[in-house]
């Protein structure tokens, strides 16, 4: 195994988090989130006033999301080491993680369609804006499967020493639980379970981004250790 390439894939997590945050926050200004209660005119004005910043921000968010695939590959290799050969958890994590990347790229494209013709009917901009938020924050399912696969692989690792410390396994299981309330945004327009709420936007977003950083640190250590012993 080529440790240099492995580290390259692992570092892609940090690049992803930095560029994604840059696009989401100062550029597109989707942090804090739009309110689900906002009217069509209000949302359309947002796209009209900040057309270029939103386009550029979404371009960066979409552009860095492919790096997730590289990072998923690095996790896959680590799980393969835990399972001794590529077992079901290796493939479960690989496929769920890859699907997860799609649900970051597609919402950016939908919002881009809204920013593409900001002068169009406000109702249509509202529709595209809704669709983008729902696409980004509702699909917890692939992330949950990915985190559970990682959690079970880490906890099932009988190696001495294990590839990743056991707390990383429990951490992943916890993260899986935290993503689930996101799916409930379908029922609410206000309160903590609306897409602008604490348990759908803030907690999952912070957890999602910090998960990358935790996994980056732990996988980097594991890859260096594996490279020096292999």
């Amino acid at each position, binding site marked *: 195994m080529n440790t240099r390439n492995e580290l390259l894939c692992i570092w892609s997590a940090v690049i992803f988090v930095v560029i994604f945050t840059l696009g989401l926050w100062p550029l597109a200004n989707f942090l804090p989130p739009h309110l689900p209660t906002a009217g069509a005119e209000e949302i359309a004005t947002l796209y009209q006033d900040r057309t270029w910043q939103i386009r550029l921000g979404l371009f960066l968010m979409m552009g860095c999301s492919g790096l997730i695939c590289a990072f998923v590959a690095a996790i896959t290799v680590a799980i393969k080491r835990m399972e001794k050969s590529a077992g079901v958890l290796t493939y479960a994590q690989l496929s769920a993680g890859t699907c997860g990347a799609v649900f970051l790229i597609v919402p950016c494209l939908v919002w881009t369609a809204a920013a593409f013709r900001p002068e169009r009917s406000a109702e249509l901009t509202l529709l595209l804006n809704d669709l983008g938020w729902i696409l980004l924050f509702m699909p917890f399912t692939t992330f949950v499967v990915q985190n559970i696969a990682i959690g079970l692989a880490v906890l099932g690792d009988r190696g001495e020493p294990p590839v990743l410390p*056991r707390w990383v396994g429990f951490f992943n*299981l916890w993260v899986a639980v935290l993503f689930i309330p996101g799916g409930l945004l379908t029922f609410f327009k206000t309160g903590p379970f609306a897409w602008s709420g604490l*348990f759908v936007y803030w907690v999952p977003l912070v957890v999602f981004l910090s998960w990358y950083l935790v996994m980056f640190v732990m996988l980097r250590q594991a890859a260096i250790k594996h490279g020096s012993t292999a």
Partner: protein
Amino acid sequence: MTQTLKARAPHLPGEAGVWVFILGDMAMFAALFITFVYYRRADVAGFVHSQHALNQQLGALNTFFMLTSSWCVALAVHAARAGLARRAQGWLLAGMACAVSFVVVKFFEYSEKIAAGITLTSNDFFMYYYMLTGLHLLHVLLGLGVLSYLWRSLCAPAGHSTLRTLESGACFWHMVDILWIVLFALLYMLR
């Protein structure tokens, strides 16, 4: 045996890593409880009024099942420490029976509410009622999985790692119990 020697030293039940999950999960529920109290302050009268629609008897019955279940699992750990794997399995089964009863009662409680036209979107109080009890119910179902896993692990010859797994799982189950106690007090009792 290593376990009897270790028991004299300060002892963290379960493995250290499981506490990452337990404390993390409790932090999430703490945030949910604080949000509930925060929104309740804005409309105490409305929350208290909605609370009257809850079935206190069923809530109390479920508190009984939760506490009994937790107690059974504690007895299972006790039995396993004494090397009585069969007895430990028996207590685990009793704990699981209580957990299943909890789920059944919850099913009837939800049906009663839905039949009365009370749903997730009726008002803020019922949003919290369904969300908090729903997330807790998810933990109960996960816990049933954990308890069955523990029951199976006791089929293997007892060793130090089995006991530690048992303790880890039991800690998770006690957390589910504690969360219910707080939940019951907040949703059903708080005036």
